[in-house]
């Protein structure tokens, strides 16, 4: 019995290392002094970090990624929070169907979603525009925000709103002073999660970008397809750093595990 338990823990440790190892090797590889990427790195230098600054396309792509991720997060939080409030608070007929519809973009492959939006946007002159890009990213962010805010609302005590209304607060005051502070943390973690989802996305973005408007993951993707250059390692390390900071914040607010609880998530 001891050996069985030991074997289980050994495989479990191995599996966790397996999950983490691709991220662990990227950071040391970025400090290489060679002209080709390798792990373990050869020598030590910061040249691939200073080279990022010499390549304006990376900086531009980074700014695009951050800008559109922030916009997608804001819009999906507004749409998602309003929608989740509508579902949680009122007896709307066919509620479960509405929730299923609003989270359904998760169960369609991102490749197919990207293709569908590209073809739909082309006659509308939205293909390759920043508006089209933003719309596509809001579609993929909405399900996560919906799920997080709905979870946050499940323990919501509507008596608090009633109490405020009885005490004479008008509906706007009730919303701003009672409802919003109570669901705020769920909405914020929904927003952070949406930011990361949009910031990291490759598959849908591939169909939405244009030569003038590219994002960081797309830049990394095409660098990897053309020629492997150690600059991919340093740019990737920067991406890992940003993700870790956001994950720490997300963990403090809500708990990262909650987002994926029994979820259907499409990535890659």
């Amino acid at each position: 019995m001891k050996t069985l338990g030991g074997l289980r823990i050994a495989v479990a440790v191995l599996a966790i290392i397996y999950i983490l190892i691709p991220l662990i090797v990227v950071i040391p590889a970025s400090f290489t002094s060679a002209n080709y990427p390798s792990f373990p790195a050869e020598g030590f230098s910061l040249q691939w970090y200073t080279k990022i600054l010499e390549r304006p396309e990376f900086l531009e792509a980074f700014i695009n990624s951050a800008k559109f991720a922030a916009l997608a997060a804001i819009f999906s939080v507004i749409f998602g929070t309003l929608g989740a409030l509508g579902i949680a608070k009122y007896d709307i007929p066919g509620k479960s169907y509405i929730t299923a519809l609003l989270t359904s973009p998760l169960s369609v492959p991102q490749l197919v979603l990207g293709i569908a939006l590209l073809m739909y946007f082309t006659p509308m002159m939205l293909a390759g525009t920043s508006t089209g890009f933003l719309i596509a990213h809001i579609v993929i962010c909405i399900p996560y925000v919906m799920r997080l805010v709905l979870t946050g609302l499940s323990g919501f005590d509507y008596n608090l709103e009633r109490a405020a209304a009885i005490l004479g607060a008008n509906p706007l005051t009730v919303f701003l002073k009672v409802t919003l502070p109570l669901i705020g943390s769920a909405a914020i973690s929904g927003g952070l999660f949406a930011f990361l989802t949009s910031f990291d996305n490759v598959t849908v973005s591939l169909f939405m970008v244009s030569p003038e408007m590219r994002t960081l993951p797309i830049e990394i993707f095409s660098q990897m397809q053309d020629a492997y250059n150690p600059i991919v390692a340093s740019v990737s390390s920067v991406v890992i750093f940003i993700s870790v900071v956001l994950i720490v914040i997300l963990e403090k607010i809500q708990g990262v595990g909650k987002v994926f609880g029994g979820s259907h998530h499409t990535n890659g």
Partner: protein
Amino acid sequence: MEPIRSYASQEIEKDLNPIEPQKEPKFKKRKVWIPGLLLLTPILLFIFGFFVIPMLYILYLSFISTDNLGGADAVYSLKNYTQIFTDSYYLSSLWLTVKISLYSVLVSLFLGYPVAMTMAKSSARIRGYITLLIVSPLLVSIVVRNFGWYLLLLPNGTINQTLMALCIIDTPLKLLFSEIGVVIGLSNAYLPFMILSIVASLYNIDPSLDKAGAILGASPFRRFFSITLPLSIPGIVSGCILVFSLSMSAYVTPALMGGANVPVMPVVIYDQINNLLHWTFGSALSYILLATTVISVAVFTRMFEKGKFKEVFR
């Protein structure tokens, strides 16, 4: 999924709490639903306009056999679909996709189950740390994770060098741009989903069942195969379905880890749409991929729900 609790244990709980807890005075939710609908209007319009309609639009396009998108001279037929089913290139690509997805399901099941069991047996604190460790990589872009694998799988990369130093192999294995590379990339990316699915069903197992088994003299081995494993089947099934459908539709990992050597359906579809500009044909391929995934998942679920262990799905 409802927790599987024995009737007896519920009875015991009732006996221990003879006084029924006072029902909280619950205010009825408002019967009015017009304001709710108003709150839902923006998101519903958005999802309809930019998700439902585009998805239906490419379904419509897939029946046009000319590359002219729905113009006056568009010809509607099933030509795209018949072409897919008569051309061995697309059929073998579909089979390759299914095969690679099944491999990545198997790898993540065998690596994931022990992690899930360890999580179920650990304290809440350890469980929290493990969850954080396995979920965080999902929040880092897939291209970054693929780059990490690229470094490890290179002909002179860490894995080949380790294997050669241990004298397991003489010449470097072709790990990159091969099916193995794609399976590694996919199972690595989706393993966390498998773990989370299994863990959810392990939590729902009544611990008194295991105790009862032990009291009746069953060995830990027997208890695992007669109690824990059968009762966690719903989690295994949903984990397998999740990893399978995610692997079937993954584009980035096969494109970077397999390249032209591993032409799975998503890679073929991308090529048709973005490089060859066969939009209507690409739309038909997309729906074939969707249908294959949905049908495989339905067959797989039915197999389990109608099979030997149907009770655990109630």
